[in-house]
């Protein structure tokens, strides 16, 4: 895939909605496309979080490794979603494993580039932080609802 094609993928992803073309260019510099087959690992807990991943196709499972029980998928991230935010905050290391559950395509934004662009432009920094917060809020609400076991007995 050519650089302009990758840039278009970034520009069309909901994560960059509200960003100006120049801002998209700034964060998309050095971005690459990652294609995964089902069961293929994207990253592992504890490894450096060097990229921000925008899922454009398929599902990637967020997994916790449990000794003796293997990796347990606790949620999935699908097309149109941001996968991971450990790249934004020190120590820039992943807290979970991520493994494709279907054929998946993601755009990997270079985390150093994104952080540098944000440091350089406070307006972009705010917008990126807001998008990441939106993702975190949705995941937190989802996790709370999953904990509630809404479809278990006794819920109406």
């Amino acid at each position, binding site marked *: 895939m050519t650089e302009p094609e990758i840039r278009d993928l970034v520009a069309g992803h909901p994560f960059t909605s509200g960003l100006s073309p120049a801002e998209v260019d700034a964060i998309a510099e050095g971005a690459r496309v990652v294609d995964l087959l089902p069961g293929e690992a994207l990253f592992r807990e504890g490894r450096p979080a060097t990229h921000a991943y925008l899922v454009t196709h398929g*599902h990637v499972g967020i997994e916790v490794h449990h000794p003796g029980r293997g990796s347990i998928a606790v949620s999935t991230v699908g097309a149109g979603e941001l996968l991971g935010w450990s790249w934004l905050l020190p120590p820039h290391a992943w807290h979970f494993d991520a493994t494709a559950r279907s054929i998946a395509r993601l755009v990997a934004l270079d985390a150093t580039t994104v952080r540098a662009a944000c440091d350089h432009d406070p307006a972009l920094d705010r917008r990126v932080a807001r998008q990441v917060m939106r993702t975190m809020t949705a995941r937190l609400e989802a996790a709370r609802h999953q904990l509630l076991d*809404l479809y278990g007995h*006794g819920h109406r």
Partner: protein
Amino acid sequence: MAIAEPTVAPLVPQLLEVRAHRRETADTATLTLAPTGPTALGDAAPRPGQFAMLAAFGAGEVPISYSAMAGHGGAVEHTVRSVGAATAALAAARPGDLVASRGPFGTGWDLDAATGRDVVVVAGGIGLAPLRGVVDAVLADRDRYGSVNVLVGARTPDDLCFAEHLRGWSARGDVEVAITVDRLGDPASRWPGAIGVVTGLLDGACFDPDAATAFVCGPEVMMRATVRALGVQGVDVADVQVSVERSMTCGVGHCGHCQLGPVLVCREGPVLPAARVLPLLEVRER
């Protein structure tokens, strides 16, 4: 969603025979019920979203939605999840057994409101039962609607109802079916799909929020979250219908058991405009 007046003597149960029993999950079964005589349902054939007061003898009478409308010989389907005495007895009924039924009662889904528009069906758990008729009706008259998205949430892969129907709808190619589970249940599960709440499926669904009608049924927390998430996508709350559950005794507006604020759910509901019912659901009950 006009208030429906029952067209059969509302307090007189009819005997229906269990013609088939299909196990959906460990605690849920679909019963095919047919009249024992020629008179039974008559012109009171149920519409999607309506319910019957079903009784298994000696175990109690409870409201249960129609999960498939009158088919051959007036047969209907109900999908029952066993949560207590009455539902356990119904879910255990076998071909040849008799059950008592009063209905159809309630408003049903307003499908006319979706004519020429995109259709978004969002179901959580057993909430797919009253919505199955919506999907069947929309697909039977497919050209009348724009895009059709069916988004389903289940507790675990093993708790997914209507698996065969979901596969059938998916295979047609003119309806998008997306399924998610709250958790895998068995960590060794080979579930290949999404894990997370049903509202997460809205991000991947293709519809025009300005021209979409949404039909939502599931636990109340799920419905509130879904209406909010639809709003974030740009769907006007006026274009969202929800089906609510309240404990019911008469089913026809006489006893007041099903009251939700000023609404008698058995008569004015169970399908209600989200804009009307959401503020009522937000009132804290003891």
